[in-house]
């Protein structure tokens, strides 16, 4: 039997159908975070879940499609961050495959790494498109403070992204991890291309 790696481009129907569901979950995460007035975005739970379930490629596609759809239906600005979303999907998929979702502690490390990388990817975009800001009140306040101290633009912008992205992604990965662990086995096997147990 052919050995399937995590980069397998074998798009099963189940994996493709997972993408719209993931985007719906992203939407709801953002909606609930807004409804409950939580100080986080929580708008990538679906992308992270899709990566954990079906690997980095499906995760990355879910991330890109998510931002395109969001751009089409609510906020054109989010097109810009499609790259960030794709990278989030990739990182979670790779690290989950390597065993970084074995327990809560590791999941938190995964969240930290995703947050740092997301901030790193977003910083050049923020500088290029809007002079370094993120549009998040707390992050931009820090940015303003650092600019007033004449710190380098990239550094202030990076700090702006970090204070927003790291807590957000750690919470996102933790929530996704809790949901993932709670999923019934017959559902997780559906997307897992390593096992041949249940395929449609």
């Amino acid at each position, binding site marked *: 039997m052919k050995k399937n790696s995590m980069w397998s481009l074998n798009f099963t129907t189940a994996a493709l159908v997972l993408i*719209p569901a993931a985007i719906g979950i992203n939407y709801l995460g953002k909606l609930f975070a807004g409804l409950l007035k939580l100080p986080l975005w929580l708008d990538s739970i679906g992308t992270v879940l899709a990566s954990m379930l079906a690997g980095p490629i499906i995760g990355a596609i879910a991330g890109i499609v998510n931002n395109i759809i969001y751009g089409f*239906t609510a906020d*054109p600005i989010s097109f810009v961050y499609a790259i960030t979303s794709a990278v989030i999907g990739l990182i979670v998929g790779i690290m989950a495959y390597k065993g970084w979702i074995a327990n809560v502690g590791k999941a938190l490390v995964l969240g930290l790494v995703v947050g740092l990388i997301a901030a790193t990817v977003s910083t050049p975009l923020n500088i*290029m498109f809007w002079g370094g800001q993120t549009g998040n009140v707390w992050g931009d306040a820090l940015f*303003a403070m650092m*600019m007033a101290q004449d710190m380098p633009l990239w550094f202030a912008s990076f700090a702006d992204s970090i204070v927003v992205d790291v807590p957000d992604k750690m919470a996102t990965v933790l929530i996704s991890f809790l949901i993932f662990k*709670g999923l019934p086995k017959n559902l997780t096997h559906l997307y897992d291309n390593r096992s041949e147990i249940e395929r449609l």
Partner: protein
Amino acid sequence: MTLYVDKKSVIHDIDPLSKLLFVFISIAITYILPTHLFVISVLAFTFIVLLVGKVFTYIFPVIGVSMLLIISIVIVQGFFHPDRATLLFEIGPLPVYKEGFAFAFLLTLRIINMVCAFGVLILTTKPDHLVDSLIYKGMSPKIGYVFLSVLQIIPQMMAMTSKITDAQRSRGMEKEGKLKTRIKSFIPLLGPVVLNSLNDTRERSIALEIRGFNAKGTKSFLNESFHYKYGLILKLILVILLFAAIVWRIVL
């Protein structure tokens, strides 16, 4: 779910791919040529396109979504731009600098132009027409399915959400109160929706496979109307404009 406005106009009749190209070139040239006057004229042109498309008033709520970013840019750049030198005016004890303000103005113009250019595409194009055109040009029909099904799934999930919220409240979940209470209610709200929608994917994929989703061979189109007027000419003009902008930037 979509922002599409169903009207009859010249802009509605232009092919989706030309509009897509318009979006990218309209945004790109405002970054290639960073002068206020040029960006204002690009923005003015985009406004005219929106007016011709009879969707001008629909763009304001979309701009509104980006308002927080714009306000933040004006405040932060106005006060703290690195090259601050010339004093423009003072608000109380706080000085606003001309350099920062000019930069913030340029960024704001670009953002509004970006939103409006996308508005031209989003407000005057049906998503399924755009996806159909892309598939016609060679995009994978499977990816096309993914895009279009999102637009159907999200409203379904929203409906499910309100049911689950009611159910959890009747079990005594608190939605308001301290931060801790609100964090606690996040999982009982999201968990069941996620489980439900993931379970649905199983049935959906069975349903799709039964209907030949993975069938080999060329796919045909339900609505074979790819006869848009002036598609090639418009794309040509847009590409020429892009090159003109690049040449202008290099020469000047």
